[in-house]
């Protein structure tokens, strides 16, 4: 069955084209059916080829056609299918299908129903190409493709210019990373002579030694792309704003799939990163720093989607930490479980927003537990998994990451401690969300409960968030053996208990209100610090002053086109001379005659002066 994997991205792509071209003549049922059905079909094909693969776990490579071949450069449209690809494809098509199904109800009343599904299908196609690509150039195609789809979907409600602003920000900021990645591609091709991922790793191992300069530079450039797409420091600022898009979009693109592309990229090119330990160190440090920063910010948000956005940034930080310490499998595992529970949380918040007249502020919600039971349980399970409470999906993956980070010699313990702090904060902010939204007094009444097309994906994702931790992902042939020694038991106990402490703190703070930290929050330092965290550590302001404003200023300065000034000068000099000379053209015959005679006399005199010498 694996021979047909090229159909997997093709089906959503064709569906997307059909929706774009024929949207006017389709009824809503056909549009929804095409949109969700195509992804469902892709999921089915993925499942079939996955079963085939598990029976016979050999990587499979297929080339459709040569994309371009110039001099010694060659890239083809070809797919590579192994355990890692399978995991990614399953997440994309599986979670993608659930989100599409959810969308058919969520977007039901939207005028641009077809446009929405066209974009969303195209996104799925591009994302599939990204993870299935055999070479970095095709991967780059998918990479940019998902970027454009993200841009289109964030700015989906184009009438509001704030959405357009957010969409542009998302695209441009990730483009900065993409440009770094493109440079990485140039460097890799120039030094290795190929962009084919498998071959490249082989070449790199032949040419480079661990610790060489070139692999470090190349990996850092690739990392540039990864931090852009995965919203890590210092290019994370676009993700919270990207929440302007429809909520299912946030679930699919900005939580489950696209933002984890950076993690996938690093995992896919881990053969290169192993040659550059210092680059891996950077990955780990960036990851944990982002994770902590975003967790603090999430604590202070009041917009339900922004909390989840910062939480996503924070969780991807964990994945980066995993990659940085060489826990490849754990990183990808967390990617998968995160896709389950974060999609669940986003869809849950989508359900709330849908039923609560587009209310985003959590303090205007409250008491929704009894009125929206499906949503409540979704949130409960999702938050438990996010906080890594024992036996949920998030627990297994995050635990692995922390334990493997701990085992890293030298810095390991510090990374572990920072990771624990992050886990504590995660538990606090996720249960703050649960307690504020679902308990306490009701501030807004929902006007409906979710229908089956929303409830079904929620339940499915609940199930996955609960049992996802027991999945075994087939990547043992892809990645080198992880560190195996087992740390002392107390390390494990601490790792398990920290999230529980976090939940307890959240309970005391936001449910029973026994713990009163108001004096602390309202103190001079406390309120300043809170505000600082709330605005995301003022990174946006910093970039605004450092890049955005200067760019506007420079462009406004150059707008007058000073280069043209030179040509304008030539023109005005000519005009000046012209004015001066045209004085002589005064229309008076006698004046002309006098000048003629004077000229004649001058010429005669000159001739007389010269002729004696000539003769």
């Amino acid at each position: 069955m694996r021979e047909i994997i090229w159909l997997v991205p093709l089906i959503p792509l064709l569906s997307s084209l059909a929706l774009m071209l024929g949207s006017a003549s389709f009824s809503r049922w056909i549009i929804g059916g095409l949109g969700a059905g195509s992804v469902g079909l892709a999921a089915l094909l993925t499942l079939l080829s996955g079963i085939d693969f598990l029976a016979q776990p050999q990587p499979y490579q297929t080339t459709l056609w040569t994309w371009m071949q110039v001099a010694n450069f060659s890239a083809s449209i070809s797919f590579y299918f192994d355990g890692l690809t399978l995991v990614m494809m399953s997440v994309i098509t599986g979670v993608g299908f659930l989100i599409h199904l959810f969308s058919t109800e969520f977007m039901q009343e939207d005028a641009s129903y077809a446009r929405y599904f066209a974009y969303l299908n195209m996104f799925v196609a591009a994302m599939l190409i990204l993870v299935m690509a055999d070479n970095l150039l095709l991967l780059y195609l998918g990479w940019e493709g998902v970027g454009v789809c993200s841009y289109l979907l964030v700015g989906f409600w184009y009438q509001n210019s704030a959405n357009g602003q957010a969409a542009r920000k998302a695209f441009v900021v990730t483009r900065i990373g993409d440009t770094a990645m493109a440079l990485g591609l140039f460097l890799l091709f120039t030094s290795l002579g190929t962009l084919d991922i498998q071959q490249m790793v082989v070449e790199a191992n032949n040419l480079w030694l661990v610790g060489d300069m070139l692999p470090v530079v190349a990996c850092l450039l690739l990392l540039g792309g990864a931090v852009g797409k995965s919203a890590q420091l210092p290019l994370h600022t676009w993700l919270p704003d990207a929440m302007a898009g429809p909520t299912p979009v946030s679930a699919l693109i900005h939580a489950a799939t696209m933002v984890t592309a950076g993690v996938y990229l690093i995992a896919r090119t881990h053969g290169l990163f192993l040659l550059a330990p210092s680059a891996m160190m950077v990955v780990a440090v960036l990851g944990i720093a982002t994770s902590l920063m975003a967790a603090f910010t999430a604590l202070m948000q009041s917009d339900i989607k922004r909390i989840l956005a910062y939480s996503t940034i924070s969780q991807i930080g964990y994945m980066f930490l995993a990659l940085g310490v060489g826990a490849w499998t754990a990183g990808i595992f967390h990617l998968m479980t995160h896709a389950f529970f974060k999609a669940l949380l986003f869809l849950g918040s989508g359900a709330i927003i849908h039923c609560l007249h587009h209310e985003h502020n959590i303090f205007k919600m409250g008491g929704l537990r009894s009125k929206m039971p499906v949503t409540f349980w979704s949130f409960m399970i999702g938050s438990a998994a996010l906080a890594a409470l024992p036996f949920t999906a998030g627990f297994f993956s995050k635990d692995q990451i922390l334990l493997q980070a701990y085992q890293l010699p030298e810095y390991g313990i510090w990374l572990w401690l920072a990771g624990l702090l992050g886990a504590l904060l995660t538990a606090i902010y996720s249960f703050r969300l649960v307690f504020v939204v679902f308990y306490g007094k009701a501030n807004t009444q929902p006007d409906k409960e979710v229908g089956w097309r929303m409830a079904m994906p929620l339940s499915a994702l609940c199930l996955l968030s609960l049992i996802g931790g027991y999945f075994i992902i087939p990547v043992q042939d892809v990645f080198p053996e992880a560190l195996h020694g087992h740390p002392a038991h107390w390390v494990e106990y601490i790792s398990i208990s920290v999230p529980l402490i976090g939940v307890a703190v959240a309970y005391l703070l936001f449910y029973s209100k026994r713990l009163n930290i108001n004096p602390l929050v309202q103190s001079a330092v406390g309120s300043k610090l809170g505000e600082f965290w709330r605005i995301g550590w003022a990174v946006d302001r910093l970039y605004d002053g450092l890049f955005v404003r200067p760019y506007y200023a420079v462009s406004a300065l150059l707008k007058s086109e000073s280069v043209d000034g030179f040509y304008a000068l030539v023109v005005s000099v000519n005009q000046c001379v012209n004015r001066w000379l045209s004085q002589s053209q005064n229309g008076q015959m006698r004046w002309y005659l006098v000048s003629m005679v004077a000229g004649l006399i001058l010429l005669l005199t000159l001739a007389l002066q010269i002729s004696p010498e000539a003769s």
Partner: protein
Amino acid sequence: MVMLNLILILLVGGLVAALSERFGEKVPRQVALVVILIDLLYLLTHLWGMDGLSQLQAPVVNDPATWLMHFKTPWIPAFGISIELALDGISLLMLILTLVLGMVAVSSSWTDINHRQGFFEANLLWTLAGVLGGFMALDLLLFFLFWEVMLIPMYLMIAIWGHENRAYASMKFFIFTQVSGLLLLVSILALAGINHSASGVWSFSYFDLLNTHMTAGAAHWLMLGFFIAFVVKLPGFPFHTWLPDAHTQAPTAGSVILAGILLKTGAYGLIRFAVPLFPEAAINFSGIAIALGVVGIIYGAVLAFAQTDFKRLVAYSSVSHMGFVLLGVYAWNELALQGAVMQMVAHGFSTAALFMIAGSLQERLHTRDMREMGGLWQQMPRMGAVTMFFIVASLGLPGLGNFVAEFLVLLGLFQVDPWITAIAALGLITGAIYSLILMQRSFQGQPKDKWVDLGTADFAGREMLTMAVMMLALIALGIYPQPVLDTAQPVLQSLIEMVAVEIAP
């Protein structure tokens, strides 16, 4: 003869179009469309039967017999001037691009020309004739002749059918190109003179002048003459200032031809003449040329961002895009040159389409000012979607032609100078900034009340068909560029080899 006929068909067709106005004001445009179509079919039918095409051999640059086609007949024998036309892969690509975009241009001005239609279409066809001649002429004086032939009808198109500030813009265009043409003429004459004093024979033939021996100083100055002439046309920084004015004021068809085809003659001239005629001088000069290219990319992009006029923004984006061509030519390796050729083709389509959209907007809204627009997607979803397509094409989305071009140029340049490449790659970011702001200001945002009752303003059949042609072309170039690359490859390879041989000793 085929090549001569290609030009003659357009010249005579122009005359017919001009005269056909007496049969009705709608006749000239139909005539023009048919004439270009006949020309294209004529070219294609002749290519069909050629065995050279299936296995495009590498033409030995200075042996005309190895080219796809070659035609030579004396014109002014006393000075060794002849009518010499030849065709190789690059010329062929440019020919096809010219004719296809010629039809696009006719279609784009289908309804917005409301006086002297016959003369308008005639000028359009004559410009095309000049461009075709320029792409085929291999006698330098003949090339110069065609260089001028394409300018004057273009000047008339801007001056007669242009917008509010047409007199200034057309005059600026004319003076810039004329001065650069003068430089070109002087350089050609000087080159022929040097060749004459060395060999004792007058000749303006490309094949004779290729191996002219001259002092390094002379070569440098002559190369500079050619370089400036072509870079003004390209246009490269700092000779680009005529372009925004000319584009903004030109009628839609004029903009389409100007951006889609005329700019490419500059790029073509660089590849065909400026470097091969003076290999050593050109390679020594490449540092400055590349620097100009990089400055052009960034400068054009930053200025594009600052514009409020739709057409002016697109015009500056051309400056930015053509910077990549300059980089590609002067990086002078196969990757970069292929990228430059690809950029010539892809930019031809993407920018022509954007100008056509600008023209359609102006026809409907009677303004090009983006501050007056906003939210137009609501009234014109089809036009919005099409614009979005060409916007992402122009910002270099992989899978569309422009990406292949930019990628190859930068990849080639990286092998020459990684640091410059890093700066040039900033163009990818700045390109995204101005492209998206264009979309935002025109089609997205709060719909303006005054456009609510615009009625059925969306793209209709003719426009959608034209756009579809260009979209398909860009997609094809983006996912299967190999035919274009293969067509250009033998030529580029032999050019590179020739230059390498010249430099080696």
